[in-house]
């Protein structure tokens, strides 16, 4: 009952003019960012952060959350219509969404995307509201070994679930963990890797790493490719045709699987919408009723990735709000926004600032409905942003990156650092070292170290504590299993190859 009352108050808060404007702006920006192939949703949220500095905390978080959820939806439009994925999330949409469009059913494909985003988003928002408070209550009983285990699990899954080489992902993660150690150590006050540079004593802000690696790194990558995009077909005939109730009922199990998987993946700190989208498509292709027809332009191939991608947002908000642990790149920025406005998410947040939390929850419901309405009525206008030359967008992305880094501490060294991390981000992408584990390492590194060291101090340097306590032991076992799974799969494939 308390939850319903708080949620109702949250809805009232969302419709306060300033918050509603923030929500609408966030949705529009999120949709535009998702449509533009050179801009990822994480980049978009990063770039929007400095614009929220002077905003009220509720409006700021609502804006960023709206961008996050809208960013999981609109990229599908360009995949379906032009075979250009707006986001990595939308690559699976090329296989069935574009195939459906080529059969002359582009409007239908867009309709399936809309319904999937709506169902996935609303279901995940409901689960988020129902789970957040109980999870926060459980989290109150957690001690440092449990927190360390959860963070370790997040770091392990970002490596094991990601794309590319496992070793490269591990190296990228360790690089991030190492960057997080730069500066004065919390326990001893010792200088670590500062090399006599005064500004490094304050450490390297993870926002600087994110802006550099995700923002500038991507622009450098596109620059090397001369900002060449695939030629677009005419964008005059973009319409959305919703599936009938009977058609939707026929794929209800795909909706259910995609939503459940998206929430679950979102809940895991580290894995985000991209993993959810691919995994959901993969599961549908392996176990779905019409698995043999996947790739030929069927509804299941659109519903599975889209429901999972949008529902992962609700899932990712749970560890962020209840434990202060970001579940994805975008939630890491939202965490940054919370901290910049002086609020530390965690189990206590429901006691101290429940009105803000429930306003954010309510905004997710309104945001999902709002983005679908905008998508239904305005997709044809929003995709016109693709006519804007990418090089102009990129020039302003660089400017926003630099201003964002400067505005955080009014320090030019931070700006130099984002250029450095821009080059590092480019080099990582070029050499096939994924950037996401590095960024997550920088974000979760200090939390991991603090919880590890505190556990060691509290339990007389007994590292088995992590494995002997029931909750932390279970989570650590899951983390190790998630790391072992791809290795076992690789060995099995090699053995099968050798047998042939």
């Amino acid at each position, binding site marked *: 009952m308390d939850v319903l009352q708080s949620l109702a108050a949250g809805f009232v808060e969302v419709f306060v003019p300033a918050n509603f404007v923030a929500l609408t702006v966030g949705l529009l920006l999120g949709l535009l960012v998702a449509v533009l192939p050179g801009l990822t949703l994480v980049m978009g949220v990063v770039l929007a952060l400095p614009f929220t500095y002077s905003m009220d905390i509720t409006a700021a978080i609502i804006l960023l959350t709206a961008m996050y959820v809208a960013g999981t939806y609109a990229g599908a439009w360009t995949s379906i219509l032009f075979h250009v*994925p707006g986001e990595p999330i939308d690559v699976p949409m090329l296989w069935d969404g574009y195939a459906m469009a080529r059969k002359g059913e582009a409007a239908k494909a867009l309709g399936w995307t809309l319904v999937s985003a709506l169902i996935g988003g609303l279901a995940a928002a409901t689960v988020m509201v129902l789970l957040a408070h109980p999870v926060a209550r459980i989290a109150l009983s957690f001690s440092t070994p449990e927190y360390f285990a959860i963070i370790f699990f997040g770091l392990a899954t970002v490596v094991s679930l990601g794309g590319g080489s496992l070793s490269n992902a591990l*190296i990228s993660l360790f690089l991030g963990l190492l960057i997080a*150690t730069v500066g004065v150590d919390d326990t001893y006050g010792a200088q670590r890797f500062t090399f006599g540079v005064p500004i490094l004593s304050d450490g390297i802000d993870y926002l600087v790493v994110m802006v550099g690696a995700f923002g500038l790194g991507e622009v450098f990558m596109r620059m090397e490719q001369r900002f060449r995009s695939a030629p677009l077909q005419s964008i005059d005939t973009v319409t959305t045709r919703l599936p009938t109730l009977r058609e939707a009922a026929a794929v209800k199990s795909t909706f259910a699987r995609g939503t459940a998987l998206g929430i679950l993946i979102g809940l895991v700190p580290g894995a985000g919408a991209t993993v959810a989208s691919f995994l959901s498509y993969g599961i549908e292709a392996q176990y779905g009723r019409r698995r043999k027809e996947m790739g030929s332009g069927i509804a299941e191939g659109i519903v599975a990735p889209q429901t999972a991608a949008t529902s992962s947002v609700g899932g990712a908000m749970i560890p962020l709000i209840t434990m202060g642990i970001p579940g994805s790149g975008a939630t890491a920025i939202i965490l940054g926004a919370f901290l910049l406005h002086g609020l530390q998410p965690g189990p206590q947040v429901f006691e101290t600032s429940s009105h803000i939390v429930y306003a954010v929850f309510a905004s997710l419901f309104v945001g999902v409905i709002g983005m679908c309405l905008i998508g239904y009525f305005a997709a044809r206008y929003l995709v016109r942003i693709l006519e804007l030359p990418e090089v102009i967008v990129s020039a302003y992305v660089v400017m926003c990156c630099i201003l964002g880094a400067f505005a955080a501490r009014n320090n030019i060294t931070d700006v130099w650092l984002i250029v450095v991390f821009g080059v590092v981000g480019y080099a990582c992408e070029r050499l096939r070292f994924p950037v996401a584990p590095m960024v997550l390492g920088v974000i979760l590194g200090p939390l991991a170290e603090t919880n590890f060291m505190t556990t060691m101090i509290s339990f007389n340097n007994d590292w088995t504590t992590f494995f002997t306590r029931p909750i932390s032991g279970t989570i650590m076992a899951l983390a190790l299993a998630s790391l072992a799974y791809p290795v076992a799969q690789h060995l099995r494939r090699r053995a099968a190859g050798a047998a042939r």
Partner: protein
Amino acid sequence: MRSILLRALPYLLVGAFSVYLYTVAGRIEYHHRAGTLGPDFWPKLVLAVTIAVCLYETLRILLSRGRRSGASGVLQNIVERSEAEHGAGYLHVEARSPLLLAAGIALTAAYVWVIQHLGFFLATAPYVAVFIALGGYRRWALNAATSVLGTLAMMFFFMKVVYVSLPLGREPFAQVTLALMRLMGIR
């Protein structure tokens, strides 16, 4: 052999750098407390695992003569399987331009250096114009308009709406920024 060494090179470099940082971590100064782990423990642990992974990858590449790939994440397997069945998802890049990239990085670095001296407007408008021209956009009038008007709009938005202070620059360039601020009603 050259291609094998090239493939192993990133791991060798990261491994060597990690060894160097490990020695730096060994020199971290602090007051040791008996029975507790020092501030060097965590970075050393991370570096030790990094060195181990780099060593493993280097040996794997050398021993398999670069033919065998290592274990990959779950997502990679799904992508490979799906791409094999339904065609490639990502756009494959045919031509790269390292020169353009180097010019872009140099231009951005120069911009960061110049912005402290010239102030936001005088540094940003030319930066945007040159960036757009470098990117191959040849409609000069539109480029100039985008650069100047866009920079002014950003300046107005950041300083007047979001209240973020932007670099004013040094004298005499600061006078230009201040004059523009007065024109836009920014205090």
